[in-house]
């Protein structure tokens, strides 16, 4: 057992080494070496993750905590550097390194037109991202998790702004960073809060503390709320979601890896990890549920009228993350993790598919100028279609099972939330098939030159697509409900050491459950039919008032600018002009001037005349004597 856990440190270390080697050698390595090195380290990490995963599953790793060294030791606070390889983290390890590896391979082809050093820079960042993401997931306390949390934020920033010559991309990177910082601050405060009460930040100690009900109701509510705010930043929920659509400025594989499959699910991981705390904070759960629902609906509605292929997928991601939060809010942590997993498969697939399309179209991202790509790019088309079916929630593809688990949990908790979530699922089906049909069906609407260049992507791109498509189709089996298959629901069993199962079991009868499945499946199929009717042959969309609002994303960015960004920057420029320049600067400069002035006059004391020196010394001696004998 010890031997196996002793390998744990290799998992994050390898990508880190990859980062160092590729980063330093980016000017010397050829693209092939960089590509093999970059993907290779992640593959080896994946193999180690697999070993770890199966050992965890066979229950031979115990609590899975591996201690390395004392990271911070101040007074009576001690923060060890520890990893925790248990059911939850080992599952995430698989997703991160597995999907990560596929995306690395895909990137080799996708980024092939970059110059050597930029190619190396890209893979260095990507490896660094994997390292930090693994750190985030493997950390056995909130501090190590926070290090990973910050690190992935950094990599996200670097990769969104990868093409740094385009200033819009830099703004997008900055926006992502700043929005994330807001959430990070809340997370950090929560961590401090926990340390101040518990005395350290180890998961085991904090959860034991919670289990013994030693947190007051206020503490637990505030801590969980702060943690949740942290999660809204990283996992793009209202009110901090606006950075994610802009983050599509990065290369498409980055969107697939960071902004769909892994980093944005960090918030879900964090809450699932802290499920004991959240289960005790009912107010927070309500807040999470409502925010999740609102985000799911808002993002889905915006996705209806976006014409940028990646923007649609981005809003779809926001919306799907909202579903995960609905699950978290209703206490269905397993369902949330399940959806993280299936979503990682089909959303990575969809992004990579869109990347394949963009690659073929020579950088074009506007779906109105595509169309009819089905025949030219059959592999991309079929995998993309499978992804759409999976995300729409058509049985028996993976998305159906995970979404169904979430809907069921919502149904048990609150019918209104259920109705809203179901409505959102229908919107999902609609906008996804709108995207698919406009892109791949009908006639080609681009330029002749683009049409001439249309081609299926190379194998390094299509093979990851095929693997991900297979996973999207089959990935649902791990969470097939008991209802359908006896002995199903492997995932709950597997995660049970980490995530306590819902207390009261299923609150609905089997017949209701069947009925709900039937209802959602039926409605989804109807929506797909609608979408086919409307977009099977491309027609210009009519300008409507609602359509305009949706196309402009509910003007949320504009509202944020008006009520937050502008006042803050006004305050900033006032502080600069009013306080800094005329206040602080002037004060500091005048002190300096004063010293200079004094200096200029003090030096006249140094006349160079011995007589005057002796006079001054005698005078001061007399003064000292006078002081000592007469004044004192």
């Amino acid at each position, binding site marked *: 057992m010890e031997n196996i856990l002793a390998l744990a440190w290799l998992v994050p270390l390898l990508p880190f080494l990859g980062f160092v080697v590729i980063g330093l050698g980016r000017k010397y390595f050829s693209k092939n070496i960089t590509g093999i090195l970059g993907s290779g380290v992640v593959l080896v990490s994946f193999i180690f993750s697999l070993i770890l995963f199966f050992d965890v599953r066979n229950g031979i790793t115990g609590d899975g905590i591996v201690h390395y060294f004392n990271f911070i030791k101040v007074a009576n606070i001690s923060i060890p550097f520890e990893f925790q390889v248990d059911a939850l983290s080992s599952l995430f390890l698989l997703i991160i390194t597995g999907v990560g590896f596929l995306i690395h391979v895909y990137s080799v082809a996708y980024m092939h037109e970059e110059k050597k050093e930029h190619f190396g820079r890209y893979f260095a960042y990507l490896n660094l991202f994997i390292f930090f993401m693994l750190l985030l997931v493997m950390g056995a306390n909130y501090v190590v998790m926070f290090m990973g949390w910050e690190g992935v934020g950094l990599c996200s920033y670097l990769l969104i702004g990868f093409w740094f010559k385009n200033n819009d991309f830099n703004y997008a990177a900055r926006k992502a960073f700043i929005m994330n910082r807001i959430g990070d601050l809340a997370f950090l405060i929560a961590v401090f809060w926990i340390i101040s009460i518990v005395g350290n930040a180890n998961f085991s100690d904090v959860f034991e503390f919670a289990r013994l009900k030693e947190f007051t109701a206020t503490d637990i509510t505030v801590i969980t709320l702060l943690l949740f705010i942290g999660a809204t930043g990283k996992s793009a929920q209202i009110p901090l979601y606006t950075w994610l659509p802009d983050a599509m400025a990065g290369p498409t594989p980055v969107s697939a890896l960071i902004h769909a499959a892994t980093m944005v699910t960090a918030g879900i991981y964090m809450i699932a990890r802290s499920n004991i705390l959240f289960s005790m904070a009912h107010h927070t759960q309500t807040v999470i549920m409502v925010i999740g629902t609102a985000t799911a609906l808002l993002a889905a509605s915006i996705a209806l009228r976006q014409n940028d292929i990646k923007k649609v997928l981005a809003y779809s991601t926001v919306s799907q993350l909202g579903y995960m939060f609905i699950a978290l809010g209703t206490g269905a942590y397993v369902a949330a993790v399940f959806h993280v997993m299936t979503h990682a498969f089909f959303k990575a697939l969809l992004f990579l598919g869109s990347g394949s399309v963009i690659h073929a179209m020579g950088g074009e991202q506007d779906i109105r100028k595509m169309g009819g790509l089905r025949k030219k790019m059959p592999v991309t088309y079929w995998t993309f279609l499978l992804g759409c079916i999976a995300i729409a929630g058509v049985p028996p593809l993976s998305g159906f099972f995970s979404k169904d688990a979430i809907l069921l949990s919502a149904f048990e908790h609150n019918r209104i939330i259920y109705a809203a979530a179901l409505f959102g699922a229908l919107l999902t089906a609609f906008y996804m098939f709108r995207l698919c049909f406009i892109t791949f069906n009908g006639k080609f609407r681009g330029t002749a030159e683009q049409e001439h260049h249309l081609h299926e992507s190379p194998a390094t791109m299509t093979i990851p697509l095929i693997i991900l498509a297979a996973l999207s189709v089959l990935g649902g089996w791990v969470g097939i409900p008991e209802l359908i298959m006896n002995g199903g629901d492997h995932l709950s069993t597997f995660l049970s050491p980490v995530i306590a199962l819902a207390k009261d079991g299923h609150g609905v009868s089997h017949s209701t459950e069947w009925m709900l499945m039937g209802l959602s499946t039926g409605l989804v199929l109807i929506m797909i039919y609608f979408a086919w009717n409307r977009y099977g042959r491309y027609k210009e969309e009519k300008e409507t008032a609602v359509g305009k609002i949706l196309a402009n994303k509910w003007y949320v960015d504009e509202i944020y600018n008006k009520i937050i960004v502008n006042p803050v920057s006004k305050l900033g420029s006032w502080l600069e002009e009013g306080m800094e320049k005329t206040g602080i600067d002037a004060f500091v400069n005048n002190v*300096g001037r004063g010293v*200079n002035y004094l200096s200029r006059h*003090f030096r006249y004391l*140094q006349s160079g005349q011995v007589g005057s*020196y002796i006079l*001054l010394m005698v005078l*001061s001696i007399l003064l*000292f004597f006078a002081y*000592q*004998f007469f004044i004192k």
Partner: protein
Amino acid sequence: MNALLISAVMGVLMMFSSFMLKSKSAVRNVALAGMFLILVANILDTYGWHLFNIPTEGMMHFDRFSLFFNSIAFACTFIFFLLSARDMEKVGINYAEYFSLIFFILCGIVLVASFQSLLILFLGIEIISIPLYILTGSDKRNLKSNEASLKYFLLGSFSTGIMLMGITLLYGHAGSFDITVLIKAGEKPSSLAIAGLLMLLFAMAFKVSAAPFHFWTPDVYDGAPTVFTSFMATIVKAAAFIGFMRLFSTAFYSLHDQWQMVIAIITALTLLIGNITAVFQQSIKRMLAYSSISQAGFMMLALFALNGTATEGLFLYVAAYSLATIGVFAVLIKMKDYTFEGFNGFARHHPFLAAVNTVFLLSLAGIPLTAGFLAKFYMLKAAVEAGGFLWLVIFAVLMAAVSVYYYFRVIQAMYFKEGDAPVSMEVSRPFQWVLGVLAFLIILLGVFPNALLYWFYF
């Protein structure tokens, strides 16, 4: 005792060597070997290996305090020789005599660090001062050097007079020159004793160049050949401080309340004048003279506080200050132009020298991770522990902030200005090595001050 006798013998030996040895390098090597021998002998003495056993009739006492300081002073002198011996030879034709005079000064330093009687203190101070008058004027053809020498001599005589007067008054009060008798007599202070004490205080303040008795310092430091300025400003000044500390922490400790305020005023004045005047200087040599005054102001804090932290701190301070100042001067000697402009673009032409020089200057300014920071920290801590004079501590901190300005002006010139930074002589490889070691020592002491202070106790 070991060091005292060997350095006296070395002084005589060096005088002979000027006509016995033909080559400069032979003289230099004899001096270096002698210096090393003195250092080793002193360390042996510290751990009970007394080579000589001469009764001092209670007039001297070689305790850990004095021996530990001697080791610091000898080690600094050794480094000084390694760095600057060649430059000493360039001052004039009597190069062997310069070494000889320095060895005599070291005798004085031993006396000042280990006196147990006011007579020995006086003797020590004079043995230090008289060779220094000569060294200051050693650049015989240079009018500035002559002028500085004469000024130094006149003002030094004045302070000697004050000191003798003070000793006489104390003798009148206690009937003895012996420190132990003075301690007893201090229990019943009279005006006579207080007046004598103050006069001794002024005379010692003159020697450590504390305001308002500092006037000689800029003129003498500026006029003297730069190598000797380096020696004067570091090892000699440190010795004067150790004598000062020894005298006031034993003989006059019971009268601490009587003179603490006077010391506080002197400290504040020294910090003010040293730092403020340094700001306007154009010549780095003169700036360093004022910097040595301002550093003296900081060391005065130890005398003001007179507690365990102050003693430890003073040792750390003299070591940090001496090492850094020796380093800065060693670089300065190589320069053609002693103004700030002379250093413009130095980093581009001599990156290594600029880097180590930056370490020295950072240490002088008291930036963390250098010895200078912890030294200043100890001083402030001692003053805070002494209690009651918080204004002095705050003032000292503000003045330390002012000092950053003139030290960083050099760094700014080296790194951020364009220029040729002409050097007057080639810079040898060993010279750079020694400077590198020096910079390393400063950083080492800045991280592990106990690497030095440990030896004070064990």
